[in-house]
């Protein structure tokens, strides 16, 4: 699987590079001669043009035969929602050393996914392994496991795994059996126990939104499961997930494992280097779920753990006054 992926990727890069160069050159040439084509499009001009083909050889053709080609600009954006974006593998890195429980990530997530329940999708846990070890703050999202227990047990394929690594939920198919919630060891899934009273549902027609599993909470559906979706609706627009941009401390990095880069909104770093240098790990590695979220241990912390206690609310994760 990995091998063929790599091969395909290489092929794709190779092709892409060539197409790119040809397109750039062609574009230049085209822009120069557009006026000429428009003027005399049907008769041979006698004027020759030098162009480079996709395999790199230079050719000479009559200028009048050069025509603008419609490039599929969205070929990276057009994909099956259930299959995911081709040649991508999204990952997250959460640096526990930087987290001081500011909860901006959670607030931003709640806001942008219109969470109306009592259980946020993004949690910041107050953790302490044992009495003698240091406490720390641990933000958790959906782990988007490569071997997702939730997907295995779903009887109707309502929750599914995509090739870009995302585990998403089709709220129009979910039957509400909650087996996925029982199966998930990270307790990341939340349920719409009642009709979610989302503000925008009233003017749903006005905003003309088409339901897609790629934007969780848009809308949430009564009797179905919701969870963190890694914000593919943001990624599609070349933007980072809401939690990443909201974090004032650059705790959360998001990126593409194939590109080996992650970004926390301030800096772009090599994923492999980051994980190696800071001893990255994943939650409950022993279960074999292979999460897509990596953690960096809470060492050399700049802020005191106690500072985070101000924001800590044991029985609340969604601020409903807003």
């Amino acid at each position, binding site marked *: 699987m990995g091998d063929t992926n790599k091969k395909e990727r290489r092929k794709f890069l190779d092709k892409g590079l060539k197409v790119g160069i040809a397109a750039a050159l062609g574009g230049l040439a085209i822009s120069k001669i557009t006026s000429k084509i428009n003027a005399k499009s049907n008769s041979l001009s006698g004027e020759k043009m030098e162009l480079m083909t996709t395999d790199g050889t230079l050719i000479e053709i009559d200028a009048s035969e050069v025509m603008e080609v419609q490039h599929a600009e969205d070929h990276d954006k057009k994909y099956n929602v259930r299959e995911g974006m081709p040649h991508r593998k999204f990952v997250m890195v959460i640096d526990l050393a930087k987290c001081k429980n500011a909860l901006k990530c959670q607030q931003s997530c709640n806001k942008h996914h219109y969470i109306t329940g009592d259980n946020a999708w993004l*949690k910041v846990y107050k953790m302490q392994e044992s009495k003698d070890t240091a406490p720390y703050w641990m933000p958790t999202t959906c782990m988007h496991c490569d071997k997702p227990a939730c997907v295995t047990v779903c009887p109707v394929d309502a929750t599914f795994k995509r090739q870009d690594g995302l585990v998403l939920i089709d709220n129009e198919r979910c039957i509400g*059996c909650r087996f996925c919630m029982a199966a998930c*060891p990270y307790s990341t899934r939340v349920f719409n126990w009642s009709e979610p009273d989302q503000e925008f549902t009233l003017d749903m027609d006005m905003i003309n939104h088409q339901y897609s599993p790629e934007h969780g909470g848009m809308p949430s559906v009564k009797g179905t499961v919701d969870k963190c979706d890694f914000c593919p609706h943001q990624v599609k627009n070349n933007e980072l997930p809401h939690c990443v941009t909201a974090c004032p401390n650059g705790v959360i990095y998001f990126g593409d494992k194939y590109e080996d880069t992650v970004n926390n909104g301030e800096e772009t770093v090599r994923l492999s280097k980051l994980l190696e240098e800071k001893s990255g790990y994943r939650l409950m590695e022993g279960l074999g779920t292979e999460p897509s979220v990596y953690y960096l241990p809470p060492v050399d912390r700049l802020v005191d753990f106690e500072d985070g206690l101000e924001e800590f609310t044991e029985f609340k*994760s969604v601020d409903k006054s807003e």
Partner: protein
Amino acid sequence: MVNYDVFIKDIAPRKFSIRGKTWVFFLAIIIVAGIIAYIDQLIQGQVVTNMRDYVLWGIYISNFVFFVATSFVGSVAVAILRLTKNPWRTPFVRIAEIITVASIVMAGITIIIDMARPDRLLNLFVHARLQSPITWDVIIIPTYMAISLLLLYFPLIPDFALLKKHFEKTKPKWSKWYGKLSLKWTGSKIQKEVHAKSIAIICIMIIPVGILLQTVDAWLFSTTYRVGWDSTNFAPYFISGAFVSGIGSLIAVIYVVRRAKKLEHYITDFHFDKLGKLLVLACLIYIYFNINEYAMPLFNSKKADSEHLQTLFTGAYSFPFWIVTIGGLVLPTILMLFKKGRKPLPIFIVSILVVIGAWWKRYIIVTPTLMHPFLPIQGVPESWHNYFPSLHEWVITSATLAMALLIITLLVRYLPIIPIQRTMDEQELNKTENKTAL
């Protein structure tokens, strides 16, 4: 039992007495209340239950498991006793078959009650994925339902023919219906051969399917990572538990039916004694698996397992846990070891204890586990840390139990509750072979 006319008269369906009518009325009220509560649940959503994101399954599921378990009685009391040639089963097999049908039908309904989107029920077929244990359930429950219906119906065919004759003059309308149901049974040699063969096939089929049903039910839990469910012991543990709750329910129902229909002459102390011994066997096997499940982990349990066990042994669930284990399992076993404990009335009381214990046992299997997720429970309202069923859940669950009892009551009302033809055949056989009944 020489006079068959008297026998048929004793067994033939009779009108409800005042008591019977009151009983049906009582059940109907509970069922109506349950339906109202369920409609409310459909409108408001499952917010009317006390289940939340952590305790995401509650009594609907434990009640479902109870029904599935109880339906096992058809495999054990009917099929296994038949294949092991235990003729003392004859007077109560029909009751066992009725309980089987009622429980498996209610199991199917109960699991739908737990579904938050019953309107999408068809998705289970349209988008079925074979790897999900729920799909296995979708396959095995209707299969078991079909087989248990056949198991009830096939032996009834000759009896329907007899009833047709019996009611010919007194109740021609009834006679007509029984005649239709008897599928033109004449009792010819060929018919009897085919009939006997079919029943033998059904009996052989219902054993593996019954075992699979219990197994799939256990796998619903043991295919997750959850502490307390993640156990390779779970399938046999569930099968043995089903053995207990099935035989327990059977004894309880037999006792009531015997009193209501005055069948003391046909279902005797001897039968209760035998059934008592069977229940002791079931309980002992179940105790064995309980020790496997709860005592052995004491030696090597991981931190999360220890917490779970602590909740059961001394923590929040210790009261139901010990009541169920001692009062619903160990004490009944001890009582039934004595001959006096297997007399009809004592064993009736014991079996009631066993059945109530079996119901709560499922509750203890389902709920406490969910309170011990791997990550701590934080950021949710305090009430989410605990679970006790809401009024809606109790009303709906009571209604499902009442519905099961109503199905049993109605079937007992309209069907010959002791296999007539079979009893007569056995009597003849005994006479000709000059043997006394076992």
